[in-house]
C-alpha cells in the first residue's frame, strides 16, 4: 500500500476558501459526470456492449478534473490507457466517447481505437495510448515541435503528458525526461500515482518510491500533490504549465490518488486487503467533495442530487446514441492505413487472392 495511505486516509479539499461558488459547482458537475460515465462503462462492459480492455477513472475524478481544468485549449494532452475521463473533460462529448467504447463509427476514433485510444485532433487530445509509456516519447516530440514553432511566453502552448506510477520504471520515461531537460521543452509530465501498477505496489516496483524525486536526475522540478484535492491538483498543474510555456522549463508532477476498483473492469483486486479497500473507499474524492460543498453551503443536498441526476441522464443519452450508431463499414477496413496513396497497397481480406493470376 502506498505510503500516503498510512498518513492521510481521508480525502478532501484542503480549503475551498476564496474559490468562487460557480467554479466549485462546475468542478463537482465534472466529477459527477466522470463518475456516472465510468459506472455506466463498467455496466456496459458487463453487458458485453464494450469489448477489449477497459480501465476506469473511478476514484481518480478529482485528479482528472484538476488536471483538465489547468490545461488551456491551445495545449496538447497525451494520456495513457485510463483515458475516458480526460476525453470527456477535454470537451469530447459523452456520446462520442461512449460510441468509441461500443466500437461504433461515430466514436472519437471511428471505433478503431476503443477504450485505450481516445483521440481528437481538434480538441488537442493526441491519444489515448495502450502500451505503457508509449505516449511519453511522442509527447516529448510534440513539445520539441512547439519549441521550434512558437516563442515562449504566457500565450505559448505546452504539452501535458500523463502516465501511471508503474510507467516511471520504463526506459522511455527516463530517455524522454532526459531529452526534455536537455532541450528545455515546454512539457509537464504528470505521474498519476494511484499506488498500484496492476497489482504491484509502487514500493514493490520502484527503488525510489517517491517518484517526483526522479526529476532531480534531469534538472527538472519535481512536485508532489494530493490527487484527491481538486483545487490543489489544478493549481499545481497550472504552475507547472506556466513554467513550461513561459520558461521552457519541463516539470515532473506527481499526483497521489486512489484507484477505487481493480486495474480494469474484469479485475476484482483480490490482492488488496480489506483494510486497503476501506482506505481507498474513504479516499473517494467524489462523495467527500460533495459533502464539503454541502457543508460549506455551496450546494444544497437537493442541488447535489440534481447534479448527479443530470450526469446520469447525460450518460444515458450517450448510451442511446452509442447503441443506435452504425458499425464501421467493412469496405472501409483499409481506409486509414496510408495518408499518401501508394501503389500496390495490400487490400485483400482473409482468403482472398493477393493478386490476380496472370
Amino acid at each position, binding site marked *: 500500500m502506498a505510503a500516503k495511505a498510512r498518513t492521510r486516509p481521508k480525502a478532501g479539499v484542503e480549503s475551498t476558501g476564496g474559490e468562487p461558488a460557480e467554479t466549485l459547482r462546475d468542478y463537482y458537475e465534472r466529477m459527477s459526470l466522470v463518475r456516472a460515465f465510468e459506472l455506466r462503462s463498467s455496466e456496459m462492459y458487463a453487458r458485453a456492449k464494450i469489448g477489449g480492455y477497459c480501465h476506469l477513472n473511478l476514484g481518480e475524478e478529482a485528479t482528472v478534473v484538476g488536471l483538465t481544468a489547468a490545461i488551456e485549449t491551445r495545449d*496538447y494532452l497525451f494520456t495513457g490507457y485510463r483515458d475516458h475521463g480526460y476525453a470527456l473533460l477535454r470537451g469530447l462529448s459523452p456520446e462520442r466517447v461512449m460510441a468509441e467504447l461500443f466500437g461504433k463509427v461515430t466514436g472519437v*476514433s*471511428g*471505433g*478503431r*481505437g476503443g477504450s485505450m*485510444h481516445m*483521440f*481528437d*485532433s481538434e480538441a488537442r487530445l*493526441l*491519444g*489515448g*495510448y495502450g*502500451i505503457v509509456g*508509449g505516449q*511519453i*516519447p*511522442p*509527447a*516529448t*516530440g*510534440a*513539445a*520539441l*515541435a*512547439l519549441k*521550434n*514553432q512558437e516563442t515562449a511566453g504566457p500565450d505559448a502552448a505546452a504539452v501535458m503528458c500523463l502516465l501511471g506510477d508503474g510507467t516511471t520504471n520504463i*526506459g*522511455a520515461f527516463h*530517455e*524522454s525526461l*532526459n*531529452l526534455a531537460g*536537455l532541450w528545455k521543452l515546454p512539457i509537464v509530465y504528470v505521474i498519476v500515482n494511484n499506488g498500484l501498477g496492476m497489482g504491484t505496489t509502487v514500493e514493490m516496483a520502484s527503488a525510489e518510491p517517491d517518484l517526483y524525486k526522479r526529476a532531480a536526475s534531469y534538472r527538472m522540478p519535481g512536485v508532489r500533490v494530493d490527487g484527491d484535492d481538486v483545487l490543489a491538483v489544478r493549481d499545481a498543474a497550472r504552475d507547472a504549465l506556466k513554467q513550461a510555456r513561459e520558461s521552457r522549463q519541463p516539470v515532473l508532477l506527481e499526483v497521489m490518488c486512489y484507484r477505487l476498483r481493480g486495474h480494469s473492469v474484469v479485475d476484482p483486486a483480490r490482492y488488496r486487503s480489506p483494510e486497503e479497500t476501506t482506505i481507498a473507499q474513504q479516499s473517494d474524492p467524489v462523495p467527500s467533495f460533495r459533502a464539503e460543498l454541502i457543508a460549506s453551503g455551496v450546494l444544497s443536498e437537493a442541488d447535489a442530487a440534481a447534479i448527479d441526476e443530470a450526469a446520469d441522464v447525460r450518460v444515458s443519452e450517450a448510451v442511446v446514441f452509442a447503441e443506435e450508431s452504425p458499425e464501421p463499414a467493412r469496405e472501409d477496413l483499409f*481506409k*486509414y*492505413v*496510408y*495518408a*499518401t496513396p*501508394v*501503389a*500496390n*497497397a*495490400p487490400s485483400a481480406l482473409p482468403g482472398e*487472392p*493477393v*493478386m490476380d*493470376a*496472370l
Partner: protein
Amino acid sequence: MTTEVATTRTITYRQALNETLRAELERDEKVFLIGEEIGVFEGSYKITAGLLEDFGPERVLDAPIAEEGFVGAALGAAMLGMRPVVEIMTINFSLIAIDQIVNHAAKMRSMFAGQVSIPLVIRMPGGGGQQLAATHSQNLEVWYAHIPGLKVVAPSTPADAKALLTAAIRDDDPVIFLENLSLYSAKGEVPDGEQVAEIGKAAVVKTGTDLTIVSYSRGTTTALEVAHQLEAEGLSIEVVDLRSLRPLDRDTICASVKKTGHAVVFEDDWLSYGIGAEISATIGEGVFDFLDAPVRRVAAAEVPLPYAKALEKAALPNAADLAKVVREVLNISTTANDK
C-alpha cells in the same frame, strides 16, 4: 516540347543521400534531421556531412544515445506537422526503438481514424561483411516489411537513393528507408534536378528471357553482376529490383517470371521467413502454371554472424552462390571456373 537535355553526374550513394537531404532541408522548413552523431560528428557514415554547419542545430539535431526516446520524439514532432528525418546509426539499434516504430508510428493513423498523419522518415543502414560481428551485421528488413502502416524502401543505386529519399520525405506516412553499409561508396549515374520516385513500384533493371533474379538493395548489384557474367555464357537473365519491400510490387515480379519461367531470389536476410519466402509464395500464387522449375532462394546462412572473416564470408550470400543456383534452376551443369 522541351529541348532541355537531362544531365547526369556520377556520384556515390553517400553523396546522393547527402545532396538529397540538403535539397529537402532547403525546400521545406518543416524538414529537420535528428539522430546520434549526425551534427558535430557529421554522421557515423558521413551521410550528413556539412549539414549542421549550413542549417544549424535546430534543423540538424544531435540526439543523445536514446533510440526509443528520439525516434518517438521525431514521431511526436511529425504529429504536429513537422517532417523529421531520423538517422538510426544502424538497423541493429532500431530494435531499441521498435515499440515507437511498430506499436506507434505504424498504427496511429489507422487507430485514430485518419485524424493524424505521420510524415516521418527513418533512415538506417543494414548489412554484414564488415567484420562487425553478430549484433552489428543484421538485415532485419522483414521486421519492418511485415508491418501494415509502414512503407519500406531499399534503394540499390545512387539514383534510386536520391529519388526514393525525396519521395520518402515528401510522403505523409512513416517510411523506413533502408541503406546498406556496402553501398555507401558505390558510384552511379544520378540525374540532376528534382527526382521523385513512386514508392511501391519495382523496376526491371535488366531484361532477359531465361530466368528472373529478384533482389533489392546491395543484392541487386550482385544480381546484375551475375546476370552480366552469365550473359557471356549465353544465358539471358532478367533482374527485378524490388526497391519497395512494403508495399510489394507483385505484378512486376510475376510478369517477369511469367516471361522467363524461372526465378531465383537473392536476399541478404536469413532464409526462413525472409523476403524470399514472400516472393516465392507470390510467384506460386501468381504464375504457378508458367514455372518450369521450383523457385529457389539464395539467402544468408541462419547463424548469428561470426566476426572471423572466413566464417563471415561463408555465411553471407555472394555472386558465386547466386550463379550456382541460377545454373541449378536452369539445369545447367556447373562449369569448372565457377568456384
